[in-house]
């Protein structure tokens, strides 16, 4: 939701970040509009170059295999990806089995244990509850 230094990563790292998020969004089947909007938001926040965004969008049809994207990934970047992948996976309202499998693979690269991954998913849920509250005082 908020900027977090991702823009200081190299252009190649930011593309890899976005490609993994596309993989997560597509893990449970065809991408829906909510998932595309989320990926576009993440690419915007990471301030990806417009041409890089076109490259990433090509993955909407056929995402890059996760193992390929995770190869030689900086563990600290993997941690940021894990956090944002958990947010992307939750967009359609639930964690699909394939999404969870992919999250566990990213967690392994990030050095996160199962309990840490579980804590991250709880954090995502808290974020959902926070975000929904805005609608209450906006009368939605």
């Amino acid at each position, binding site marked *: *939701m*908020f*900027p*977090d230094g*991702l*823009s200081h990563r190299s252009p190649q790292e930011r593309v890899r970040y976005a490609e993994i998020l596309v993989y997560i969004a597509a893990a449970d089947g065809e991408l829906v*509009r*909510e998932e*595309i*909007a*989320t*990926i*576009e*938001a*993440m*690419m*915007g*926040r*990471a*301030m990806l170059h417009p041409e890089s965004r076109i490259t990433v969008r090509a993955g909407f049809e056929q995402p890059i295999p996760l193992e390929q994207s995770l190869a030689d990934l900086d563990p*600290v970047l993997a*941690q*940021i990806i*894990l*956090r*944002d992948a958990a*947010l992307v996976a939750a*967009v359609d*309202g639930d964690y699909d089995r394939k999404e969870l499998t992919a999250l566990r693979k990213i967690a392994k690269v*990030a*050095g*996160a244990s199962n309990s*840490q991954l579980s*804590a*991250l998913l709880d*954090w995502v849920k*808290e*974020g*959902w509850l*926070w*975000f*929904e*509250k*805005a609608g209450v*005082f*906006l*009368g*939605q």
Partner: protein
Amino acid sequence: MLPDTVHKLPREERFAYARLLAYMARIDNELTVDEMAMFEQRLGTALLSPGQRDAIRAALKSPPSLEECLEELSGEAGRLALRDAVMMAAADGTVDEDERDALEDISEHLGLREDAVEQLLDWTVKGYKWMKEGYELLDTLEE
């Protein structure tokens, strides 16, 4: 990022939403990296066409007046724009007087309750706290 409804708005309303955010981004004549990242994030959420994106980025260079922005804005698009304008105003850590005045004007234009901006600012602070907890969770992974 989180479940949102901006992408469900009609195309013209998404454009009006983004135009208001462009106005907010330039209100203090400064555009920090944090504000730009937030602006680009919201632009992404709006799923604008390439032509609309170009027009919005042009609006960043030469911002429209608040009155022009508000002419096009009402209903749900307006409320979502106010919500995200509050987040953008707070993105650099402070909400200055010009920003606060603009937020109150938007709220008044939309006919929202008097404390709407205050409520949204409190809500944004809670959001920052939530995000900080996310960073702290990541920090624990490094131990």
